[in-house]
């Protein structure tokens, strides 16, 4: 596991590897917060997902697996599609966010001027601060048939019919990427910033081109940040529902959108709870797998 334990300054060699250190207690506040505000409410949600109604307000509610069965059977033919759509949009959003976010993070981290750094930081964060509602409407203005892109392209005679940029997965993904790139950038910039530039310079002075030095030195060292950022963006994009609802029309139906519909217009919090549990389960599996990869890669890389 952690080979560095051997060098710990509290001078307890190998034995320390099996015993938690006092620092472990620092987990206590987080644990308390989560138990009170996450585990308990989710206990409530899990209970709801196996009842026919709300057991607290409805004495006639009974235990049932029908909500889970409904999802698994998928008579309507839309539930499984919704799950795949969710994962697919999540994956695409993550990859694109990474492709956009990495160069920005690298630029920001390597920037010499403090002022430049702050300016880019502001620019990166500003999209997040517009607020989910307004940001979505800004994208509508850009992507609509009568929006900026289409009117400009048509006035230049490049196209004759408006491009369908909205009310589909494309528009949804663009809007989601836009929201999540800042998260990717902020996660990566801290990690990249900590990578000693002289390592890259050493590689270059040994004859490697800039690109090669980047690919073989900086990139591998930034991997923990890449994985952390990807995980964050993935988790966020698979649970998003406001943006896909506003941008996707009916072309896009994700599991979170379905959950929101069940809560807000079908008034079926029990089925919504079951869907939520299913989503959570699928994602926990993915996250745990990611973490195993992260641990293995970090362990192998160690220090240069």
């Amino acid at each position, binding site marked *: 596991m952690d080979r*560095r334990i051997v060098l*710990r*300054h509290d001078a307890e060699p190998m034995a320390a590897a099996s015993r938690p250190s006092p620092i472990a*207690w620092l*987990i206590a*506040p*987080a644990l308390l917060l*989560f138990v009170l*505000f996450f585990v*308990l*409410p989710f206990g409530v*949600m899990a209970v709801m997902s196996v009842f026919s109604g709300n057991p607290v307000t409805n004495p006639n509610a009974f235990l049932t697996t029908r909500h889970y069965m409904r999802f698994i059977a998928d008579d309507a033919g839309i539930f499984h599609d919704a799950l795949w759509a969710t994962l697919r949009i999540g994956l695409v959003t993550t990859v694109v966010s990474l492709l*956009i976010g990495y*160069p920005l993070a690298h*630029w920001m981290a390597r920037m010499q001027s403090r002022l430049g750094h702050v300016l880019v*930081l*502001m620019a*990166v*964060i*500003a*999209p*997040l*601060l*517009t*607020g989910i*509602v*307004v940001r979505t*409407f*800004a*994208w509508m*203005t*850009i992507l609509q048939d009568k929006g900026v892109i289409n009117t400009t392209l048509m006035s230049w005679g490049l196209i004759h019919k408006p491009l369908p940029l909205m009310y589909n997965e494309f528009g949804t993904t663009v809007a989601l990427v*836009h929201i999540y*790139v800042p998260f990717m950038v*902020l*996660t990566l*910039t*801290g990690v990249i*910033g*900590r990578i000693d530039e002289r390592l890259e*310079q050493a590689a270059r002075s040994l004859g490697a081109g800039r690109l090669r030095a980047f690919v073989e030195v900086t990139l591998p060292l930034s991997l*923990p*940040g890449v994985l*952390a950022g990807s*995980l*964050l963006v993935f988790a966020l994009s698979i*649970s*998003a*529902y*406001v943006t896909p609802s506003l941008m996707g029309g009916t072309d896009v139906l994700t*599991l979170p959108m379905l959950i*929101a519909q069940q809560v807000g217009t079908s008034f079926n*919090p029990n089925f919504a709870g079951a869907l*939520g549990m299913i*989503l*959570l389960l699928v*994602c926990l599996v993915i*996250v745990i797998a990611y*973490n195993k990869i992260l641990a293995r890669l970090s362990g192998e890389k160690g*220090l240069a």
Partner: protein
Amino acid sequence: MSAVPNKMPFDPGRAAYVTLNVVLLGFLLAPIAIVLVFAFNPTPYISFPPVGVSLRWFDKFFASSDFMNALWLSLWIAACVLVLAVVIGGACALALARGNLPGRGFFTAFFMSPLMLPAILTGLALFQSYLLVGIGRPVWGLIMAHTLIAVPYVLRTTLAVLHNFDRRIEEAAAVLGASPLRVFFEVTLPLIRPGVFAGGVFAFIVSFDQFPVSLFLVVPKGETLPVVLFNYMKFDLDGAIAAASMVSILLALAVVLVLERLIGLKAYVKL
């Protein structure tokens, strides 16, 4: 400590790199430019190209007590959440990275799970629990709910920085006679600052922009800005929401600037 200066007068590689980044920044900022246009455009619906410049939406925004109360409430809550999330999340990250806990992978996944669940369920679950327990919908309940969602971010960024951390610096300090506590405050903390700062910024933004959880937990006259904006938008989709957006961007950026000065990214100390 600084990069090797380029000897060539024009460096195509570097130019391409900077251009790429500027284009990407453009992608990020384009919608904001639109919002800006929208905020000054007098027509009460989204139209492009704009027809003029007018301050009516800003007037409407500042004159509305709904909007103003919501703005201050959101800022206040976000500030509380920032502090709470950074402390709780930072401590948790240290515990996970250094505490040698059994089941680290599980705990990490556990603490990340609020992110994976659609916030509408988190909001509904908390709402039901609060009602069950009988505490109603107090502001601190809203703050704790936001903190719950913010902690995973702080955790993630701080862990990422801790992973890449050169422990030998701490060991060197210890060898030179510093106590563990001193090592922590004078060596560790400053060096993980970028991660903590990023996490803090996240926490603030996540709380300020939070919508689905707030939806269930706000009370009449105690609504956060995103909730007020969303409800406003359902009936009156006009420039007032763009004006609200512009104002909140500026205020929030001011907060981030202050944060940057205090905690700062200047901790790129290289030894």
